[in-house]
């Protein structure tokens, strides 16, 4: 049974078909890459799964429960976190506060609890340590370097322990040394039980990290399987090279 299932999903923006009757299945426990040429609908699928935009047709189920129609906060509550193409953090909050923002419980408890309960605070510090950015815990998010922001964004999304995390171009704009650190942290988090779905253009990053790769073209899945198999798939080569 797949953790996330996208079934005949469609989305149009005016006359442009961004996602066209797309069907995907993301197995639990792995790191799956979602690749495709520019405009193939990768980020639109992320936005549809996480409730940022409404679908035109189709179904999205997570842990066998329908999640389409839920808002982004409700989707996060169900256990799906995400990051954005350009790292987004809260610039006027400190790095530590950035990690304390995530809420996965609702109602009055979310309102009345203290912002920095000691257990949550120590978990946030552990996360900063794990990402090797604990030295900037007290610095404002806006003053951090782009690489630190990328790591902080990953840390924030992991704070509420989501079962599935969608990463939108985690390697974008990141230097090779940091890229290796990000890949290493993702492997560790994956070994602790988090499933990842990654949109990425850096092919060597995807091929080294992912256990499964899905290829999109013009809003549809055209191939899926092990990285080495996908790499030599004729339809994939055709989509990328435009042959």
């Amino acid at each position, binding site marked *: 049974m797949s953790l996330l299932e996208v079934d005949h999903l469609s989305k149009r923006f005016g006359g442009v078909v961004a996602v066209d009757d797309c069907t995907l299945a993301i197995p639990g426990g792995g790191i799956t890459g979602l690749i495709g040429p520019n405009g193939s609908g990768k980020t639109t699928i992320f936005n549809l799964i996480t409730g940022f935009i409404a679908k035109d047709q189709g179904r999205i189920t997570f842990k066998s429960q329908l999640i389409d129609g839920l808002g982004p906060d409700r989707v996060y509550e169900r256990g799906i976190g*995400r990051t954005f193409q350009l790292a987004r*953090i809260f610039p006027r909050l400190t790095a530590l506060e950035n990690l304390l923002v995530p809420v996965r419980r609702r109602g009055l408890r979310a309102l009345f609890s203290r912002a920095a309960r000691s257990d949550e605070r120590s978990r946030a510090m552990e996360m900063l340590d794990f990402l090797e950015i604990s030295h900037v815990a007290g610095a404002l998010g806006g003053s951090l370097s782009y690489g630190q922001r990328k790591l902080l964004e990953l840390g924030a999304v992991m704070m509420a322990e989501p079962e599935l995390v969608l990463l939108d171009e985690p390697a974008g704009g990141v230097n090779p040394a940091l890229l290796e650190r990000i890949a290493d942290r993702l492997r560790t988090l994956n070994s602790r039980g988090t499933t990842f779905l990654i949109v990425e253009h850096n092919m060597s990053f995807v091929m080294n990290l992912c256990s499964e790769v899905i290829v999109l073209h013009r809003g549809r899945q055209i191939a899926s399987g092990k990285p080495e198999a996908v790499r030599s798939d004729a339809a994939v080569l055709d989509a990328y090279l435009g042959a």
Partner: protein
Amino acid sequence: MSRLPDVRILKGVGMLALLAFALALPAIAPDSATTNMAVFTLMYVGLATAWNIMGGYTGYISLGHAGFFGFGSYSLGLILARLGIEGGYTPFLFVPVAGVLTGLLAVGVGWFALRTRAATFVIVTIAFMFMLQLLAENLIGLTGGGAGLAFPAPPWRGDFYNIPFYYTMLVLALLALAISWWIRRSKFGLGLLAIRDDEDKALAVGVPAVAFKLTAFVVSAALVGMIGGVYGYYVTYIYPQFVIDPLIGISMVLMVFLGGLGTIGGPVLGALILEPAQLWLAYNFGASRLYLVLYASVFLLVILLMPRGIIPSVRELLAKRQAALAAREGLTP
């Protein structure tokens, strides 16, 4: 490292001294001119603090809070008139009712207004305020229209007249401050600040933005409504154009911007500077509305020199000095 507790102790002592001064003020300067100024200053401390809960923490700038001020004022006036309550201390007991009614109105207004963001939200709040003003002018059977609405006359005379209002405004200002402080240190408050920074990102990490914004809006409006109620009883006669006055709303905003948007102490500082200055101008230059020139000048200066307000700017300056000092000490063998 040892500096942090010192600052905390200084802050605590400063706040206690300020509270002691506020409690003792009517005994120190009992004349009605001073206590009248103090009533209005405390009124704006409460209003600015309440406005900051919405505008400062979430970044949603409401220019229509004067609508809630007027609604609270009319609510209390109408309750007192319908129940036939006479002047004295009893009307103060109904102030929370005015707050609840204003809060209920804010649920309805917020439900629609908070579907918009940024400049659109500002315009929606202004439109709401003018709609309410028009309603107050035209629902003559209910509000008295342009002829105004009378409150029961307070029975106190001479210098004592202002004292009950002074302490009621003090209680409301302290209530607004306590709520603001609690929100700032809660998970809810952190969620509001996250919404201010990036609402979509906040949603992506589970912050229920609609519920959080609406709660802040309602709490803010209810506090403003209660203060509006006490104001109505203080001035004993209210008119739509004077209690649903855009200048009241703009004053709250300006005080918060001057003191420091999104801080706890900023609105207090802003109100303590601007309201006495405005009243001083009114006493010395009559009802010439010269204070509007002061407001415009202050607004320009704040935007140009301290766009984040006094408290954040001073805090930043101190942090820079401390960092420079530490660096210099580090270089010393």
